[in-house]
């Protein structure tokens, strides 16, 4: 979280994340080149380079696509989400090396422009076995470029989180095109069973995780809040909300996070302004609701970020009747301070 835009707001976690990433990339390439040279002594350096970077980009893309649903299914994976954009940009650069070297190797030695040659050297679009798979890879690379170029918080804030998310959902299209690129390209020319099996496992793994996470979210959206009393709806008993944590409740198409802290109850929108992270899955740190994704903070009673930050989320009026927590379904404008409901007062009143 930073007031000004910086190329990268480095901190210890990001340095560790990026060091592990760079180490992993170099290790993979070294192992691939070493094993390739031993197992396929007739393979040229260019071939090893193209295949090494190509398979690495595919592996990284699978990892990236698994992180989101894994975090929705289990909070222990959240540290992987923190710096996922660096992983995405690294994957794009690896894919770019694969693409550029491939174009130089296969399309730069004729009398036609390499980029034109890429699209006109093979036009057998009607054949599955001899499909011009290079075009699919090129299109996927363009999508990945758009995503890498707009990955910075500058674009996130200026495009708004929902629009930015829509653009970045194009990664699913890029994934489908890359699978087709490999399936109709490398797997047609090379009858290696291992590559086919690994790709099949990757498709099943990524698809299953996304469907499982999607089904879980759908169940949450369908959970209807409790009975209505005087315009307020029941959420749960106050004891069911852990201290400094929240209970998330769906109100129509909105999710609201009801926090319990220091003998008080407040409710704010569950959607973080930064990347739409689930605030209700975070906790209160230093008096502020802290988003579990990237640490953006909001005051639980006003929904406003502490100065000098200016982000704000909508707030909801709460009420305690007996031990039941109720909230009013109408959102107050972002940053509206509302009086929290006092738990001690209710308990004291009951015991009199």
């Amino acid at each position, binding site marked *: 979280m930073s007031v000004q835009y910086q190329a990268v707001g480095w901190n210890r976690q990001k340095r560790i994340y990026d060091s592990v990433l760079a180490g992993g990339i170099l290790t993979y390439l070294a192992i691939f080149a070493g094993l390739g040279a031993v197992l396929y002594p007739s393979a040229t350096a260019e071939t090893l380079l193209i295949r090494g970077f190509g398979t690495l980009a595919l592996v990284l893309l699978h990892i990236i696509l698994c992180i989101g649903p894994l975090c929705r299914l289990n909070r222990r994976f959240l540290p992987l989400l923190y710096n996922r954009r660096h992983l995405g940009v690294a994957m794009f650069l690896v894919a770019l090396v694969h693409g550029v070297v491939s174009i130089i190797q296969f399309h730069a030695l004729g009398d036609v422009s390499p980029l034109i040659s890429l699209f006109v050297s093979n036009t057998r679009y009607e054949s599955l076995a001899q499909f011009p798979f290079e075009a699919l890879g090129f299109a996927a690379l363009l999508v990945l470029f758009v995503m890498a170029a707009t990955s910075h918080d500058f674009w996130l804030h200026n495009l708004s989180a929902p629009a930015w998310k829509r653009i970045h959902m194009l990664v699913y299209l890029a994934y489908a095109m890359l699978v087709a690129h490999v399936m109709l390209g490398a797997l047609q020319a090379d009858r290696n069973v291992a590559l086919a099996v690994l790709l099949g496992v990757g498709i099943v793994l990524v698809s299953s995780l996304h469907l499982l996470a999607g089904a879980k979210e759908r169940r949450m*959206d369908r959970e209807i809040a409790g009975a209505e009393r005087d315009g307020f709806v029941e959420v749960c008993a106050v004891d069911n909300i852990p201290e400094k944590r929240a209970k998330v409740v769906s109100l129509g198409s909105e999710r609201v996070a009801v926090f319990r802290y220091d003998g008080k109850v407040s409710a704010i929108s569950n959607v973080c302004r930064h990347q739409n992270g689930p605030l209700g899955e975070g906790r209160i740190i230093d008096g502020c609701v802290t988003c579990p994704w990237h640490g953006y903070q909001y005051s639980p009673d006003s929904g406003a970020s502490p100065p000098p930050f200016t982000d704000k989320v909508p707030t909801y009026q709460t009420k305690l009747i007996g031990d039941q927590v109720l909230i009013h379904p109408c959102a107050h404008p972002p940053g509206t301070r509302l009086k929290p409901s006092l738990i001690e007062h209710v308990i004291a009143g009951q015991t009199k």
Partner: protein
Amino acid sequence: MIQPLRRSHLWIWIAIAALLPVLFTAGVIVRRDTTPTNPDVHWEKLK
């Protein structure tokens, strides 16, 4: 606010989960043997 995004996300993955296995199976079925007719002749040896 983001429920429509969640809904689109789920439908996209239902489509991908249905489409990619079909493409994968079709791709495996049409794989051709790229071994040269005469396995003793290989272009890499002629360099």
